[in-house]
């Protein structure tokens, strides 16, 4: 299989893996797994209170997703900068 095609198939598989749960568990809340862990902690130790609070919390879900988007964009920006750089370098040779 051509390398480009092979990677395309792998990426397609990832997309399937992401979409499949959404179909399988239609109507599920899809909250964070860490939130469900907090519920279990509350069951085991009802008296437990987190003993410290974060220095700063994103004021809303929108701001939080902004920060996650920035994180992903900055990371993928560098990943593709590097791949473009090495590809260009190889073409010159």
């Amino acid at each position, binding site marked *: 299989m051509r390398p480009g095609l092979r990677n395309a198939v*792998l990426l397609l598989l990832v997309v399937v893996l992401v979409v499949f749960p959404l179909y399988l568990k239609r109507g599920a809340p*899809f909250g964070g797994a860490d939130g469900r862990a907090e519920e279990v902690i509350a069951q085991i130790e009802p008296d437990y209170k987190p003993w410290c609070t974060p220095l*700063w919390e994103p004021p809303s879900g929108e701001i939080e997703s902004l920060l996650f988007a920035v994180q992903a964009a900055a990371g993928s920006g560098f990943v593709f900068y590097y791949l473009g750089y090495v590809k260009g370098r190889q073409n010159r040779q």
Partner: protein
Amino acid sequence: MPLKWCVLWYAVTLPFLLWGLMSIRRRVQGDPRLKMLLGLAGAFTFVLSALKLPSVTGSCSHPTGVGLGALLFGPAAMSVLGTIVLLFQALLLAHGGLSTLGANAFSMAVVGPFVAYGVYRLLRGLRLPPPAAVFTGAALGDLLTYVTTSLQLALAFPQGGSVLAPLAKFMGIFAVTQVPLAVSEGLLTVVVFNLLVRYSKSELEMLGIFPERGKIGAPRA
């Protein structure tokens, strides 16, 4: 998480960070051209840990992305990069938080890379093709990260003196959710690894990874 566990996990993680810093310094001094590739490994972790993906349990979690850097630069170097990513998330996103940073760093930046690296080396030693070894290493590194998280929580919150009952509960939440995500992480790591083999062969040679000739010199940590 109670204070004594926070302190304990900081203490356990610290030596790996020092080891990783020394290993990175030696590697980059040996060949400054590798700095770019190190940046790529860090950026890959940055992207993957920002992606919260849905899973078959009906809840979401995110992959770690530490496998790629671990098999390129050795696990200790990845302890440093993984901790930097976690620090960013703890400070800006209150995701994890500073009190649990030590515990999170141990599971994602110590256990994850060491499992990924160990599995990768083992499978390459058994003469499995590189993509298979990369996939299995990255996927198991991801999964074991969340098994570790479950264990850490169970240790901190035992139920009636037993660690096993809460462990089963936390594993049911984290580890099961993580299975499809670990597969995704394995696949994505193989995609980037394939691209590096194709376009960045000279850097992989410097690191002693050159699958075409079956040479798998150890990237010394």
